[in-house]
């Protein structure tokens, strides 16, 4: 019985570790997408990140319950090597997350500036005519 519980816990820890890795992969992919202005790839990656973060939160809550709820949390039967790997992966993910966060802030700021730039054009530039008309409707409002 105890062995089964330990195995189940380790299985969840392995899943947790794998999700940390997948999340790191997605942050990597999202950063590349931002750099390349690849909107579809960014949106796809963000959707994956949302799915992974939900599952990570769920697992963290499950694995982090009180000692009464998880009597084997500190049991020597828990895979210590696995714990070390999780700790390392989590640290690396945090580092990556900090850079990702900086890139998001920077890009958000840049987009905000561009939105301002675009808004400032309205009223200053005349409606185009002729062959380029279809390209400059100026009808979009942000």
């Amino acid at each position, binding site marked *: 019985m105890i062995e089964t519980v330990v195995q189940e816990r380790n299985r969840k820890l392995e899943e947790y570790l794998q999700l940390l890795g997948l999340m790191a992969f997605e942050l990597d992919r999202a950063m590349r997408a931002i750099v390349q202005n690849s909107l579809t790839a960014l949106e796809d990656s963000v959707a994956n990140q949302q799915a992974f973060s939900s599952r990570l939160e769920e697992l*963290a809550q499950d694995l982090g319950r009180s000692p009464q709820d998880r009597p084997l949390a500190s049991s020597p039967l828990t895979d210590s090597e696995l714990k070390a790997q999780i700790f390392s992966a989590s640290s690396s993910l945090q580092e990556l997350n900090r850079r990702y966060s900086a890139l998001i802030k920077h890009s958000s700021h840049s987009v905000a500036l561009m939105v301002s730039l675009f808004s400032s054009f309205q009223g200053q530039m005349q409606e185009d005519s002729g062959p380029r008309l279809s390209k400059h409707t100026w009808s979009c409002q942000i």
Partner: protein
Amino acid sequence: MPDLASMGGLNTSLLIGTQALEAAQGALTATSNNIANSNTPGYTREIPQFAESEQSQSGNEIIGGGVSLTGLQSVRDELLNLQIQSQTSLQSSVDTQSSSLQQIQTYFSSTGTDIASALSAFSSDLTQLSASPSSSAVQQEVLSSGQNLANAFNNTASGLTSAQSSADTQVTQTVSQINSLTTQIAQLNGQISQLTADGQSGGTVQDQRDELVQQLSQLTGISVMQGSDGETITTGNGTPLVMGDSSYSLQTTTGSDGMQHVLDSNGNDITSSIQGGQLGGAIQIRDQVIPGYLAQLNTLASQFAASFNAAQAEGFDSNGNAGQNFFSVPATGAAAGMSVAISDPSLIAISSDGSAGSNGNVANLSASLTSALPSGQTVSQAYANLVDQVGTAASDASTQSTAIGQNLLQLTNQQSSVSGVSIDEETTNLIRFQTAYEAAARIVSTIQQLNTDTINMIS
């Protein structure tokens, strides 16, 4: 979904951040530049170019180098540009000819002093002379209307020569403009080569050069080739105008015909080989179209004068003498030099037998206006044919210009869709980026919280 083994470890991603920030800044700058220049004539949309940075090895682990911005690429369709240049040259040539033909048409219009009106008045006065052969007043009228007819030929020839002179002046002016543009294009070629050698984007300078090449194509037909040291531009027949950062000036010189001839940088006369653009149009109208009309007008003046003089010779004037030439025409430039040879109305050969009061030869004089000339047409028919040619040529040029203009519009539309900036597209993307960033920012917070959870979980 990739497994952990295929990811090469978490550390492979850690070095990306800084480079990503720099590359993203470049990409966003390019996008904002596109928006800022959305209405700039000749601006070519730029898209950032990325490359995977070199990987490095740390122990047994291969660490990815991330992504770096290698440059900005202008979105150009060179084939489309060449088509536009070609059509621009053609339209410019046709427009130049059309403009000149419109000017020429005025000399053939029914103004009361044109050749058709003068012929009609001359014919009418001859009819009156037949009715009143002894009337000195009517005789004077015939002499005056004959003079008016000669003047009409003079004026029409003068108008054609004036249009020819205008075209000749345009040749000189256009060559000067061509030389100015080719000098500027060569300088920009040099700048582009330098920027490329330095690994920088020459997009803006290329736009400037494309704009100048477009202007050059309005002046003359050109052929553009991309070379390792920049664009090579020649005239349609291969005379070099620009090679890399060197330009080759055209020159003009007065030829034996009194017209300005175009010489290449080696002094060879290339006038007859120039086609397209204002220069080609001006040369075409000056050397082909107008001389053709002048030749027909001279033939008409010469043949009509000869026919009328022959009718004069068949009769006798009021003094009983054999009729002498009524019109005088030089051997060359008959229309321009046509004049009435007599100044005394009594010298009109009215009589067929030399007797006073006879009007027997007036019929012959009148018949010279309605009989076929050596060309096979009467003087009125021949003139009407010439008027029709001028009118048709002017109309054809106008129609052709409209057709080329529509074609050019389509090509320009295509170019705009390729190279132009789509504000709507950029705006939509901005909004989607904002949404994605907001969602990503929430995940960043979640991951930060996860760190605490993880430590609690495994400690």
